[in-house]
């Protein structure tokens, strides 16, 4: 089989896999972003603020990118990119130290560069890092109390709780993404053992694995450069072609759980396998 033929067989198999189950695309959810949005919405309401936003660090581009915002005044910030370490958000990201700022005198150039691009210059703000044991992944900013009063230590504490929620959501989303990789690889392994499916030799499998690797890497680049761990995990599961029946049963259980989450029944796969 030529490389091209192997690649074509690989893509054909991928397509058939995709047709049989599109859990992957459903799991590539904007769910993480939806949770982030609900976090900033809640922060605005509960902290009685004009606006709130979350910026996440994008390693390939080395930028903090504002992903979601709440409050009428805050929307202009979405999509804005700043250098990590630049301005108050950058400082908080880099130092890991939460802080609140208010009543900055006019001659200070405080955040104006970024703020003016968004059409909204805050009078006061709380900025806290999105941090867990694994490190800092972004910043939550809450801007301007509606009644004009300053933010205090309790606001820093509150914002820290919201930031914690956001961090958990983001970590869960990337875990989900890794699970998608796992699912795809597991499907591949199943298909390769499936007598009714397209036949696949080693080279075709390599090409397929390569295709999935590229796919995963592209996705990782788009989503902010997750570790290669997802791919390594998928690769490991892809090798379950040679796995024991117990291990394959585990893979099927994982598939079932994932498919159930996506609202689909998997009984036919299980039935087809036994």
């Amino acid at each position: 089989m030529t490389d091209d033929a192997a690649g074509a067989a690989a893509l054909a198999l991928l397509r058939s896999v995709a047709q049989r189950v599109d859990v992957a695309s459903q799991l590539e959810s904007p769910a993480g972003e939806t949770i982030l949005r609900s976090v900033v919405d809640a922060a605005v309401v509960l902290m009685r603020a004009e606006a709130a936003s979350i910026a996440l660090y994008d390693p390939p581009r080395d930028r903090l990118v504002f992903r979601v915002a709440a409050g009428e005044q805050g929307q202009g910030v979405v999509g804005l990119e700043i250098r990590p370490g630049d301005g108050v958000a950058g400082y908080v990201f880099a130092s890991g130290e939460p802080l609140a700022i208010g009543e900055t005198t006019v001659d200070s150039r405080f955040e104006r560069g970024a703020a003016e691009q968004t059409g909204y210059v805050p009078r006061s703000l709380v900025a806290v890092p999105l941090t867990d044991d694994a490190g800092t992944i972004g910043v939550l900013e809450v801007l301007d109390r509606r009644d004009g009063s300053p933010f205090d230590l309790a606001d820093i504490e509150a914002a820290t709780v919201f930031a914690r929620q956001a961090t958990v959501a983001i970590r869960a989303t990337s875990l989900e993404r890794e699970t998608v990789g796992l699912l795809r690889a597991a499907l591949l392994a199943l298909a390769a053992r499936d007598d009714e499916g397209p036949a696949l030799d080693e080279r075709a499998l390599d090409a397929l694995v390569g295709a999935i690797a590229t796919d995963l890497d592209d996705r990782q680049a788009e989503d902010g450069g997750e570790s290669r761990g997802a791919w390594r995990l998928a690769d490991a599961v892809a090798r379950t072609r040679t796995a024991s029946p117990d291990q394959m049963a585990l893979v099927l259980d994982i598939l079932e759980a994932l498919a159930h989450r996506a609202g689909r029944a998997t009984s036919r796969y299980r039935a087809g396998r036994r």
Partner: protein
Amino acid sequence: MTMPAWSEAFISATRGSGRLSRERPFGHLDRAEAFGGVDGTGLTVAVIDSGVEANHPAIGDRLVRSVRVEVDGDSTEIVGDDGSDVVGHGTAAAGIIHSIAPGAELVSIRVLGPDNRGKGVAFLAALEWAIQQGVSVVNLSLSSKSEALYADFHALADQAYFANVLLVSAANNVPGPSYPSLFAAVVSVAAHDIRDPWVWFYNPAPPVEFGAYGVDVNVAWRGGRSVVTGNSFAAPHISGLATLIRAKHPGISPFETKAILAATANDPT
């Protein structure tokens, strides 16, 4: 996971809960004996932060040197900096220290900013350089969460302690590791909400042993002034006080400085 709310022991609403109460082993130490009549002259305080605006009126021309850490992969180099502050935070810290110990010389070591956003290796290099320079006090408004750097930070904290250099760090309010702010050799500080730089509390329950003014502090900021809140504005108050104590009692060790800070702390009422 519960959040360590380091300030809770120190703020007005919860300070009376008794967490800070204890028998004072040596009674009160008179503040005049502890640091009366000195202004920090003869000592140097290093500020590891976002840089310090050299010509800011709040610094009183006491900034004698500005450097920054350049990072290239894992290698670092200390190079001269231009005496500017890319955020305002370092100027705020230096301004607070200067307001308490106006005679002390200030050295700025910039590790935060767009070009080297607080990488652990830069922070390590800055700390090592400050210790080598023989400064009396190092004010740290940042900490690293890198487990990989734990041993390096621990070694440097010990090195500072034995070299008689006092490290004062803002407590980090986020969960997980925080180096060197949680090391025993370091003076770790959280904010209280009494608007008085001369009020500080001692908390006998580690790791955050001191609470200082850190709420609605009017500070020097890049190009002006600002009103700010955070542990990183409490730490420089303790840095300034420690500088006075060390000026009054030349040669005292970090643990003696800490003991005097505790013995002169306000009662938690």
